[in-house]
């Protein structure tokens, strides 16, 4: 197994971005519906819930779920 400069960069960047307080996937999920509604309403969820935004930026699984949720909600809204 070899450590390439690219991996080293990723590791350092990841450490550099670490904040003292970050929420986990469970806490993110707990508020994701509120965050999504704010975004769809054109409000600024990243300002109201910066920890959720931070988690979504750093967690690909939660981000994937969030994007799918937005897609689903937009479809439902377009029916109304």
């Amino acid at each position, binding site marked *: *197994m*070899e*450590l*390439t*400069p690219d*991996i*080293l*960069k*990723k*590791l*350092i*960047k*990841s*450490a*550099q*971005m*670490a904040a*003292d307080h*970050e929420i*986990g*996937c*469970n806490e993110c*999920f707990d508020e*994701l*519906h*509120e965050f*999504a*509604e704010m975004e769809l309403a054109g409000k600024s969820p990243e300002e109201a819930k910066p920890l959720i935004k931070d988690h979504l930026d750093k*967690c*690909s*699984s939660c981000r*994937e*779920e969030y994007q*799918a*949720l937005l*897609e*689903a*909600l937009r*479809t*439902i809204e377009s*029916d109304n």
Partner: protein
Amino acid sequence: MFNWFKKHRKEKSSYETNEEWVEALKPPVDERAVALLRQKLIRGLKPALHKYVDRELDQFVEDVAQDALLKVLDNIDSFRGDSKLLTWAMKIAVREGLTELRLKRYDDISIEDLKPDDDSREVFSLSMASSETSPDRSLHESKLVDKVMTIINEELTDKQKQAINALMIQRLPGPVVVKQMDTNRNALYKLVHDARLKIKNKLELEGIDPDEMLDQL
């Protein structure tokens, strides 16, 4: 008698407010509300999941909606009313669907296949990849690698090393690492967050600027 009255009182053709939805989804449930919610979940899930499902999307989405409905009904008392009920229910359905898809995606990989070999288990056994850069540059990079490796080996727990190795160096997908380490997504995120923080703090303590380090790579 009361339940009969309640059930019949609740039958409606539309559910506009959260109160109406919650009332209809609490026992004894209003079947029309359940059917309407199922229909809306299916309507939303199809476009949300279609790019992940290569065949039998309709059947998959119907199964996911059904499982999600059961979770919604089981947890209706925990709905806080801080969004529309449909948004909350859709969140549950989307997670249900993507979790199922992730499980299917890695279903064929056995735990044995996921076990790292002896070399990859130990982060300190990693070596710098040979590069085509100048000898001076390679030497400098090697020193940076040594520095980071020393921090990793001295500061991180074995589990943190294993997680960093699997996610960042072997680049295994998160669900695979969760399975490999017999943990869950939330615990893995927190484990890695703590590891990242330890590396960051140690770099700061040693007066190393990560930006300068990155510039030198």
